[in-house]
């Protein structure tokens, strides 16, 4: 067997310590070792964005990161997006404006949109669309997703 890598990492503020296969991806560890299945795996090649997480402040596809690379780093996933019972404004706007249908892409879109609004609180629709281009959705035609993001941005600016 391959020599496993000892990894210490923070996920949504909680400390985790585990052994990863050298070639094991972060999404694999999140889902299968840590049982945080909110992060979805749609392609394993970085083309769908369903596995989006924030790694030390940077939006990434967790299928394109080795778990071993996250030693000492901090990971934010969908499970950490709400503050207790208080949904993030993005989550609430996705619900209110029906920004989701089947819901498989939703965690990835929410994480990507969160990263967008942290960097640019007042994006144009075009900026939002290009930022979110790495997240595929097959149900919605993107219309209500983009509207949800724009509404959340406006609400957060006002807050």
């Amino acid at each position, binding site marked *: 067997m*391959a*020599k496993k890598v000892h990894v210490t990492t923070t996920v949504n503020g909680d400390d985790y310590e585990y052994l990863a296969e050298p*070639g094991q*991806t972060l999404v694999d560890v999140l889902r299968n070792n840590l049982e945080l299945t909110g992060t979805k795996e749609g392609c394993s090649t970085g083309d769908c964005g369903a596995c989006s997480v924030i790694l030390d402040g940077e939006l990434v596809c967790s299928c*394109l990161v080795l778990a071993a*690379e996250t030693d000492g780093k901090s990971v934010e996933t969908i499970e950490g997006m709400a503050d207790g019972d208080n949904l993030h404004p993005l989550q609430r706007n996705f619900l209110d404006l029906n920004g989701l249908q089947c819901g498989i892409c939703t965690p990835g879109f929410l994480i*990507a949109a969160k*990263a967008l609004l942290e960097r640019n609180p007042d994006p144009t629709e075009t900026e939002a669309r290009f930022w979110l*281009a790495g997240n595929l959705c097959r149900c919605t035609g993107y219309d209500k997703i983009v509207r949800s993001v724009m509404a959340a941005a406006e609400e957060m600016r006002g807050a």
Partner: protein
Amino acid sequence: MTELRYEAPESLDGAVTLLSGGGGGKILAGGTDVLVQLHTEMIEPDVIVDIKNIPELKRLSEDGGAWTVGAAVSGMNIIDNDAFQTAWPGVCEGVALIGSIQVKGRASIGGNLCNASPAADSVPAIIAAGAIANIVGPGGSREEPVENIVTGPGQTSLAQGELIVSFSFPAKQANSGDCYLRLTPRTEMDIAIVGAGVNLTLDDDGTCIAARISIGAVAPTPLLVEDAANALIGTKVNDAALDAMVEAVRAACNPISDKRGTREYRIKTAGVIARRAALKALERAQAN
């Protein structure tokens, strides 16, 4: 796969040592190509050498107008640097087209170059910019113009144990401008059918005195097309000069037909995209 090891050296020497031993070392920078290759079993290395903990690979600095960009600096870090963006907008356009925001959060110029795809978006842009690759290896360090790195699809001129540390961009000349454009069916998340990087310098009365034109996805490697540059040098970059440039670009093309586009379509649109990139570079040069 069962033998795979993960190593993250913190020095260049450490990386070179790991890459020099045996035949199966693979460099991991952003990982956006390597991890796909690993998991689809296109590659089966003995050791993954993560180079992101080596300070020299992560440097992004300017000295007297000349820039040094570490080979593993992420795309987002490059395009987020306002000063670099001002100096090399065309290079940033190329970097900005390397996949999604998520992919650019990891992917680097070094990886984009060393993956050695003919369609790599940042490569024509940095070739046009005249970037130099700073290389270390078991035999010490050396410098190589970027256009000499890729030798064929998936092939580079780097020797075993060598890695690119950084890229040096020359100080930007007055009255110069660069641009990278590509053609894809989708607006994002696509591989270039053709790409063109153009870097022009004008004199005070608007005559082109220097030009570098590089095209991608139209040959086994990204090309530096000197005939195309020569068609512009000494002209005011008027329609006649642009027509000659387009002709030279098309003459240089030697693409394949594949799932992403036919040979004829690529040759035809290479000229279109190169012309558009040249006009944008010209506009920038005139504004500088």
